[in-house]
């Protein structure tokens, strides 16, 4: 039972265009969402996050949108660059309750940006 779903295993876009990566979740207790980027043979690196009290967070070329009613978030990269080619993971966590801050990850979407 996957709580975080990335339904597109791969995405290919042209350099300079917009990349949109999507993520759906089922657990209404999630209150914090993150996107991680992963290159081959490296660990995931943090990209951008959003709290459930917001619907948008922007950092340079990267913007994350959150639609709580639809339990959906998306990552927009504009303009896309060849160096953005990587696997992108969506992750979510519940409010800290003195126990664990564990992240629940999706399966990832492999983005390829073509020159």
């Amino acid at each position, binding site marked *: 039972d996957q709580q*975080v779903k*990335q339904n597109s295993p791969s995405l290919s876009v042209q350099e300079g265009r917009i990349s949109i990566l999507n993520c759906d979740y089922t657990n209404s207790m999630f*209150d*914090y969402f*993150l996107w*991680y980027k992963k290159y081959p*043979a*490296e*660990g*995931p*690196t*943090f990209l951008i*996050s959003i*709290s459930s009290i917001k619907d948008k967070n922007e950092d340079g070329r990267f913007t994350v949108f959150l639609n709580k009613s639809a339990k959906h978030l998306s990552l927009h990269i504009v303009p896309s660059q060849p160096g953005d080619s990587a696997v992108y*993971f969506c*992750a979510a*966590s519940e409010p*800290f309750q*003195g*126990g*664990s*801050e*564990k*992240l*629940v*990850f*999706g*399966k*990832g979407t492999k983005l390829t940006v073509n020159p």
Partner: protein
Amino acid sequence: GAGVSQSPRYKVAKRGQDVALRCDPISGHVSLFWYQQALGQGPEFLTYFQNEAQLDKSGLPSDRFFAERPEGSVSTLKIQRTQQEDSAVYLCASSPSQGLHTEAFFGQGTRLTVV
């Protein structure tokens, strides 16, 4: 070091062998996580430490898996009597605080192959 360091980077074990995977978190980071990433999947939570206390081990798949962080810094994940299904990348992550949503910093991982 500047980041999370894991060793070894690669480990080949014969089925039934015991293995120990090491994680050096970022200095001063309170929280430490272990994740397991199977091929084509997202990272899956194994266990969580707050300093030396193991607060959540709900993700450990069996009693063959054991983790410790005796002095609140370096952590070791031990797998006894390895099985082929244990083959995966084991990721360690640390974060500076507990109770506040912050991103976790991941190491490069240890790729375990059980033959």
